[in-house]
């Protein structure tokens, strides 16, 4: 079932009674989630991700705009008639019910013609439990399970009624790092096996990148970019997206374009074409630095962090906007980093230019992209 959002907007009245200012949590959303895909809604805290999710689930009514499931307009339907499964950040498992009773709960709500026979319910519950691999824990109470297992129960409860759309609200944020890695693969597997269109809210860019078919990056209720994970990283639409994705984050310099050359501070680093002379922001991914004694970017070395396969060179540059540069280079080059100065050459396809005022990506020509 594809999901279409048309001009979707949600305004909340201001918390502060004195000011009449409204908070726009979701501002004019337009996008289509293709059938059977997993979409990651990504953005910092308070950007309206969860609001967007609740608008799809029907728990919130939009101020304006429409929500379509397939060709059906569901904007005015209450959540129970939309056929959505929702997984909450804290799982919201009923603590007094066993795993089996929890998963069966949505099925027991069905009435009339939709009501399943007892055997059919049992079968569906077992099926859902087996899908998330907790079939052997049916008689446990939620409090007797680990966080990861509780998460699985929550997913089983959401998929047992075969929803058209599965919505996950920060499903991994209550898990420890190792479990998070495991569970996100699990979510991906479950999504693939069931083929349910899934929307996944997270503030963790790595999480979003690793399992989504498409990423929607949000900021202050406004969509910044919708693209495949790799494209969002390689081809950011603006400085915010570039900064938000990637660890360590992108290094941002004050730069300028003069006569077809890109300057970072006074260092003439790369040729550019088709860009008029102007001040710009220059974003360089950490892996975009190449250690080169004769490289054009002259930095002051602060330190080196060893990470095993790679090393991270921490350095300073007068034109840097931020505290320090982080450059990731292969570990075998470590011995070359000594002394107070370190010079880099830049990989052109890892360098992005942004307008100084609007912070929008400068695309025409820009840095001459070699083959990545």
């Amino acid at each position, binding site marked *: 079932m594809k999901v279409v959002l048309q001009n979707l907007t949600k305004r909340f009245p201001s918390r502060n009674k004195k000011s009449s200012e409204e908070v726009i949590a979701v501002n004019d959303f337009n996008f289509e989630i293709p059938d059977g895909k997993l979409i990651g809604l990504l953005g910092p805290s308070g950007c309206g991700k969860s609001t967007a999710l609740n608008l799809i689930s029907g*728990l919130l009514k939009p101020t304006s705009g429409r929500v379509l499931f397939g060709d059906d307009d569901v904007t005015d339907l209450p*959540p129970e*008639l939309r056929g959505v499964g929702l997984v909450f950040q*804290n799982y919201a498992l009923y603590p007094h019910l066993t795993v089996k009773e929890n998963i069966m709960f949505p099925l027991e*709500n069905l009435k009339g013609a939709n009501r399943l026979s007892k055997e059919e319910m049992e079968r569906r519950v077992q099926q859902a439990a087996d899908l998330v691999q907790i079939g052997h824990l049916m008689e446990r109470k939620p409090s007797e399970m680990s966080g990861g297992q509780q998460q699985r129960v929550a997913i089983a409860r959401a998929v047992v009624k075969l929803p058209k759309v599965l919505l996950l609200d920060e499903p991994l944020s209550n898990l420890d790092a190792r479990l998070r890695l495991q569970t996100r693969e699990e979510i991906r597997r479950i999504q693939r096996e069931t083929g349910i269109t899934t929307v996944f809210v997270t503030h963790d860019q790595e999480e979003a990148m690793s399992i989504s078919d498409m990423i929607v990056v949000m900021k202050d209720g406004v969509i910044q970019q919708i693209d495949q994970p790799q494209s969002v990283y390689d081809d950011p639409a603006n400085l915010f997206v570039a900064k938000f994705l990637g660890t360590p984050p992108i290094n941002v310099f004050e730069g300028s374009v003069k006569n077809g050359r890109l300057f970072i501070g006074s260092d003439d680093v790369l040729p550019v074409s088709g860009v008029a002379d102007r001040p710009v922001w220059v974003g360089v991914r950490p892996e975009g630095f190449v250690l080169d004694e004769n490289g054009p970017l002259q930095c002051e070395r602060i330190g080196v962090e060893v990470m095993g396969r790679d090393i991270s060179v921490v350095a300073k540059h007068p034109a840097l906007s931020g505290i320090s540069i982080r450059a990731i280079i292969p570990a075998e080059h470590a011995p070359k980093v000594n002394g107070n100065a370190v010079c880099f050459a830049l990989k052109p396809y890892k360098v992005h230019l942004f307008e100084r005022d609007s912070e929008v990506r400068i695309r025409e020509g820009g840095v001459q992209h070699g083959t990545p």
Partner: protein
Amino acid sequence: MERRENNLKAWLYLLPAMVFLGLFMVYPLLDVFVYSFEEGYNSASQTFFGVGVYNYSYVLHDPYFLQALKNTFILVVITVPVSTILALVISVALNSIQTLRNFFQTVYFLPYVTNTLAVGLVFMILFKPTAYSDGLVNLIIKSFGGTAVDFIEGPYWAKMFVLCFYTVWTVMPFKVLILTSALASVNPDYYNAAKVDGTSKWRIFHRITLPMISPMIFYLVITGFIGAFKAYSDAVALFGTNLNAAEMNTIVGYVYDMLYGDSGGYPSFASAAAILLFAIVMTITCVNLTVSKKHVHY
């Protein structure tokens, strides 16, 4: 070594509380138990005739005690469920309204902070017929074509009705307060999850809300039982001090009468009645605890 020192310190800190508890709680309790077996104990001369179960036998054959026992049981059986269920209904209603919630919360809490005498006065105006008026309730009954009933000095059921009404009225505010805060503390995600799954309102209430606040309900039921068994002052406020004559005595009232009332000066009988009350309350509480194991979810 250090452990032992710590133990000593702990006991030292506990000492003041232990001394007071021992002196004013444990010792009197044991004493009451002893009195209840001492036949014909006289507190002035500190003498008694013998040891045995005569006190219990006397109390259990005393028609006043049996009347008090009956009254207390009726009071408990009616007021505990009625006040708890009413409080639950009111709390759920309070929890689901937005406008004027604070106003209604205050209204429902007023009886708790109102002076007992003032409440008594209100009940007089409501129920007591005087030379000038039949009381508000009787006026209403009459306007519907009924005949006036004397609720204060009339038939037994009318007096019992007033006593139950009064008790429910005075114990409910506290229950409403506890239950509204219990309801407010249920995580709204549970309701959202249930809503997405298409759960009916009634099912949400009895499958989610009730189990979630069951510890609080259980607490109110237990304390409600104990409180109702100990009822006395409410009856006095309504029917005056001669409760035996009004057929409205309670067990605690009987104990009081045996000690200080017109027929007073019988600490042995009073002790026996008090021990009987203790046994009843203890039994009921144990039954409550056993039943609750199945239905209360912590």
